């Protein structure tokens, strides 16, 4: 006989929602985020200070991670850098979600239905298809080239790239849900479309979108780093991980590895932590995994 104690309930909750991936993700991300959040209090130097005469110095007590070819302290920069990457990632993903999810709902719900909404839906799908045909990176490069190299543009570009991704995910689920019995019942009693969509279909359709969120944030960070690396993202002298790698790239071949290696490791840790969380959430919300 199982006792329905409070402790039993709490254990049940933990067993139900928490898993290895979430734990690893949090253990990795929380310290990182704390460090970058309090970077201005913790970091030894301002990230853009140039130490003239101290170029490409190796690891030392003064510069724990050495300096780069411009004389900036890598350790401080590495502490500050995740800020921009995270901000861009989160904002870009939010943009993609806020526009993409309702778009997907609309398109999925009205697809191949008669009336003006159906036609709009068709046009939107075609537009989404066309956008998705462009390789992500090239589109990003092109738009930044055209609109100018500003952080806000990077956010717009990446957000723009995520819109079709979220829309597509939500659309598939909406299509699947809209023919289910309970939806047909609602329509039969004359319920307004907007209510049906938001109250009934949304909860079902949103789960793949939720798991996509952390993937998108991670991917946005990698993309930002890539864009900055080629000079189409964050500009000098801001601390950004991809940019730091770019500054250090020329020196790798001559053996000065520290300007490149450290930012890369931090970048990987950041992305890894986010993917862990993403995987953890996916497993968490899948009812088949509940004991």
């Amino acid at each position, binding site marked *: 006989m199982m006792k329905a104690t409070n402790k039993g309930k709490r254990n049940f909750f933990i067993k139900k929602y928490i898993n290895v991936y979430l734990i690893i993700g949090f253990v990795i991300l929380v310290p990182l985020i704390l460090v970058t959040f309090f970077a201005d209090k913790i970091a030894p130097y301002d990230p853009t200070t140039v130490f003239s005469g101290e170029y490409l110095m190796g690891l030392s007590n003064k510069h724990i991670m050495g300096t780069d070819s411009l004389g900036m302290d890598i350790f401080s920069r590495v502490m500050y850098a995740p800020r921009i990457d995270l901000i861009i990632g989160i904002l870009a993903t939010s943009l993609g979600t806020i526009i993409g999810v309702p778009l997907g709902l609309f398109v999925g719900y009205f697809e191949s239905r008669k009336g003006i909404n159906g036609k709009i839906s068709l046009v939107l799908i*075609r*537009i989404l*298809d*066309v*956008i998705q*045909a*462009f*390789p*992500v*990176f*090239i*589109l*990003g*490069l*092109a*738009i*930044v*080239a*055209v*609109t100018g190299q500003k952080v806000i543009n990077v956010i717009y570009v990446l957000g723009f790239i995520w819109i079709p991704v979220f829309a597509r995910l939500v659309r598939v689920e909406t299509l699947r849900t809209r023919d289910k019995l309970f939806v047909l019942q609602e329509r039969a009693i004359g319920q307004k479309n907007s209510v049906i969509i938001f109250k009934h279909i949304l909860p079902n359709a949103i789960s793949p979108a939720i798991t996509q969120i952390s993937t998108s944030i*991670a991917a946005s960070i*990698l993309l930002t*780093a*890539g864009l900055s*690396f*080629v*000079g*189409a993202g964050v500009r000098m002298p801001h601390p950004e991980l*991809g940019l730091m*790698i770019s500054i*250090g*790239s020329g020196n*790798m*071949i*001559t*053996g000065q*590895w520290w300007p*490149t*290696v450290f*930012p*890369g490791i931090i*970048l*990987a*840790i*950041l*992305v*890894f932590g986010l*993917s*862990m969380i993403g*995987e953890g959430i996916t497993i968490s919300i899948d009812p088949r995994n509940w004991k």
Partner: protein
Amino acid sequence: MITFKILRILKFIGRRLLYLLPQLMGVTIVVFLLVRLIPGNPAYVLLGQGASDEAVAVMSERLGLGKSIIVQYEYYIRGLLQGNLGDSWFTSNPVLIDITQKLPATLELITYSIIIIIALSLFIAKVTAIRGNKIVNNILRGYGFLAGAFPDFWLSLIIIFLLFTLAGIIPAPIGRLDISFISPQRVTGFYTIDSLLELDFKKFANAWSHLFAPVLALVIVNSAPILKMAQATIIRTQKEEYIKFAKDNGLSDKFSERMIYRNSLPPVLTMIGYIYIFMLGSSVLVENIFSWGGMGQYAVQAITHSDYAPMQAIVLISAIISYIVYLVLDIVYYSIDPRVEI
């Protein structure tokens, strides 16, 4: 039986190609508008900073500036169909010429990478998912997450550092061949193929030695999502009811494995196609590091120098290539899964 299937597939291709046309038009519209978004006279934008007034006038004429936007678009399309992709003011070449030199470089890189990735995933799928060894499965998963977290440009630098600077195994990252070699007679544009055709084995080996590092970087990073997807799909398919039923009635392992593979294919194929297209774009970074001379480098060069004609052409070509890839994917899909709608 076989011809019946082929007929079906041909019909499918026919229908798909019909859809392709309006979609390509959509792409050209986007690309056309892209350059028009830049503030200023499009002729001036395309010609670059130092253009003379006469040149601007000629270009304006060619673009049809001053006429309605529809007519301008018409001029553009006509130009495209004649193979006119504009001129790069930076390289002083027509963009078409530049691209015919640079595109194969990129394609060689990503095609070999994807081939290796596909082989890898097949191997991994067979070894682990089918046997169901828990430890191996977890290691795979870990690799999937870990390898996917590193940016490929960073990994390239690490590889260069380890294998060139420290170990001296791979050649210097300055292009596709050692300086002492002349590029082979152009047939396909792939140095590895063309050197063979020339029967120049030294050149062949050299081309491969230069390919090694960038391909390694691309494979390590880009195989991660595919391996994860393959593993997850196979595990999910193994639980399907039709697998259980057939096995319960004595279907041998050989047959049941084949059944699992075929049913796991669609999502994995989609991922492979997507990664190939993704690499088309993201190879920009790796190409930069290895001075590869491909489309990627061309694109970066165009951006940093505000050279918009190549930019426009690159976006267009990438889109066309991705459509081709998706078409091929869909055909393969359709030949496997009869339920797919056209």
